[in-house]
C-alpha cells in the first residue's frame, strides 16, 4: 500500500464526494486541492468556480486565495461577486452547486463558526468572519465541511453562528426562511461524519485507517452515533499520483 499524508487522505476523501457534473464552489487551501483532484479523477465534467466571480477557471497553478490571478485564467466568464453568488441561487444552477467550506467550530447540526471565539463583543480570538461562507451555506444544494477533529472545535454550542447548517434540526432551515440544502459531510483529520436523514444530527460514517471510533469521540465535546461507521478506504496509488503530479506539483498545500 502506498504511503500517504493526512492532508492527502482528507483531500481524497472530499474529492470522492464530488459528483460528475457538479458545480463546485471552492475556497482556498485543501478544498481547492480536493476540487482539482475530483476533476482529474472521478468528475471530469465538474466545474470549479470562486466567489470572486471566476467561473470555470483553468487552474494551471494552485491559487493561494480565491482572488489570486490564477483563478482568472481561461475561465468561461470573469465576473464579480454579484454574479458568482447569483450562480448559487439561480433556479437553473443553484441546486447543482456543491460547496467546500472550513470553520473553527462546528456543532452537531453542522452549523459553523468562522467569526469569533469567546464573546462576540470582546472576542478572545477574532477570526476572519464569514467571507462568502454564510452566503454559500445559505444558498447551495449541499456542502462539504473540512474540520480539524478537536474537542474545542466540535462544540455543543457555537460562540457565533456564521454559516447555517441544519440550524436547530429537522425543519430548522425552512422555519428560518432558508432555501433547501445544507451540510452533507464533514471531512476531518480523523474521520468522515454525515448527518442523519431524519434527525439531522451528525454521525460517524467512516474513520481513517489506524483511527478508532473511540478516538473520534474523545476529540468531540458532544457524542455522536458510531454504529454506522466503517473504515475509509485509503487513497489509491492513482488518486495520490493525480494529487501530487497534476494538482499540486509545487507542494504549496501538500507540503
Amino acid at each position: 500500500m502506498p504511503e500517504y499524508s493526512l492532508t492527502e487522505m482528507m483531500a481524497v476523501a472530499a474529492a470522492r464526494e464530488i459528483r460528475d457534473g457538479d458545480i463546485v464552489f471552492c475556497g482556498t487551501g485543501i478544498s481547492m486541492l480536493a476540487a482539482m483532484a475530483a476533476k482529474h479523477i472521478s468528475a471530469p465534467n465538474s466545474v470549479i468556480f470562486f466567489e470572486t466571480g471566476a467561473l470555470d477557471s483553468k487552474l494551471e497553478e494552485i491559487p493561494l486565495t480565491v482572488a489570486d490571478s490564477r483563478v482568472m485564467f481561461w475561465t468561461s466568464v470573469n465576473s464579480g461577486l454579484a454574479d458568482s453568488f447569483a450562480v448559487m441561487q439561480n433556479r437553473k444552477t443553484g441546486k447543482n452547486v456543491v460547496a467546500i467550506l472550513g470553520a473553527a467550530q462546528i456543532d452537531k447540526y453542522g452549523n459553523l463558526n468562522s467569526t469569533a471565539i469567546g464573546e462576540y463583543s470582546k472576542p478572545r480570538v477574532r477570526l476572519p468572519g464569514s467571507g462568502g461562507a454564510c452566503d454559500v451555506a445559505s444558498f447551495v444544494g449541499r456542502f462539504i465541511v473540512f474540520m480539524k477533529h478537536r474537542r474545542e472545535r466540535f462544540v455543543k454550542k457555537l460562540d457565533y453562528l456564521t454559516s447555517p447548517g441544519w440550524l436547530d434540526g429537522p425543519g430548522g432551515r425552512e422555519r428560518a426562511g432558508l432555501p433547501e440544502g445544507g451540510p452533507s459531510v464533514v471531512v476531518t483529520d480523523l474521520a468522515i461524519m454525515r448527518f442523519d436523514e431524519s434527525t439531522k444530527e451528525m454521525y460517524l460514517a467512516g474513520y481513517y485507517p489506524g483511527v478508532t471510533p473511540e478516538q473520534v469521540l474523545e476529540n468531540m465535546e458532544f457524542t455522536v452515533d458510531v454504529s454506522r461507521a466503517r473504515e475509509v478506504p485509503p487513497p489509491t496509488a492513482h488518486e495520490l499520483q493525480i494529487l501530487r503530479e497534476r494538482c499540486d506539483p509545487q507542494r504549496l498545500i501538500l507540503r
Partner: protein
Amino acid sequence: MSEKVMSLKEAIEKFVFDGCHISIGGFTVNRNPMAAVYEIIRQGKKNLHLYAHSNGQGVDELIGAGCVKKVEIAYGANGRFAPVCVRFRKAVEEGKIAVEDYSNYQMTLRFLAGAMGVPFLPTRSGLGTSIVDKWTFSPQERKKDAKLPDQKLIVMENPFGSWGGATKVLLLPAIFTDVTIIHVQKADPLGTARIKGLTFADVEQAKSAKYLIVTCEELVDPAELREDPNQNQIPFFCVDAVVHVPYGAYPTACYGYYDYDPIYLNQYREWAEDEHQYKEYLNKFVYGVKEHKDLLSLVGKDRLEMIKADPRTGYAVGLKRR
C-alpha cells in the same frame, strides 16, 4: 489635460478626510489600491469608517496604521498569506476598532443598493445566523449617527407571499460612501476605466461613492478605451480623480500586469505580529518614502521583475510562492 488628473497626494488631500466613510476596491491580495492606502497612512488620516467585503491587505494596513475607527466587513484574512489578517485581529481583540459583521454577498448587495440609489436590497443569505442577532453598533448609537442606518438589517416576511419560493427575506441597508478608491488597469484622463480580470465588487463600490478616486496602471488616450467600449466598466462621469500610479496595487496583484509579491506579503505578516517590527516596517516602507515609486525602488527591480505577469496567463508563471 483634464482637471481630474492629479497626483495621489492631491487626490487623497482633496477627497479623504478624518472620519469619512470610505471603501477600497480589490479582494484579499488582488488589485487593492495600495499606493492610495499608503498615501492615506502618510497623510495621517484618522477615525475612518471603512466598508469592506474581503479587501485583505489594504484593510489590514489601514487598520494597522491606526487610521480606522469602525469597520463594516465580511472577511479579514488574506488566503495563504494570512489565515486572519494580523493587525485586524489584534485591533479587534484589543478593542481598538469596532467591527460590524456581514457576509460578502451582503456587502456586495449593500454597495449595489448604494450604486442603484435604493435604500436597501433583499436576500435570503444569513437567515437564522448570528449575523442577524449580534450587532456591534447599537440601535441607540445608530439613531444618533446620521450616517448610519437605524438598523443593521431587517428580517421580514416575503411581502410578495411565497413568490420566488421564499417565505422570509433579509433586508440590507445601502452603503453610501463619502469616497471610494479603486485601482484599475487602464483609465483615460476623464475617468473612463477598464478593469481586466475579475471586477470583484469594484463597480458597485465605485458607483456607491460620493467621490470616486481611480488610480491606474496606464493613463491612456480616450480613443483607446472607446474603440472597444464593451471592456470598460466605469463611465467617466462617476469619477472625480484620475491618478496615474504604475504598480499602484503593489504588493497585491494586478491581473495582466504583475502578480502579488509573496516575499513582501509573508514578511508583512511576520512583522505585523510584533509591535516593534511593525513600527519599523511602517517607518521604513510607508513613512520613510515620499511616494509609491520610492517604495518600489526600496523593494528593487529584481523583485518587480520576479512578479511580472506572463502575457498568456496574466500572472507570474512558476513564481516561488512559499
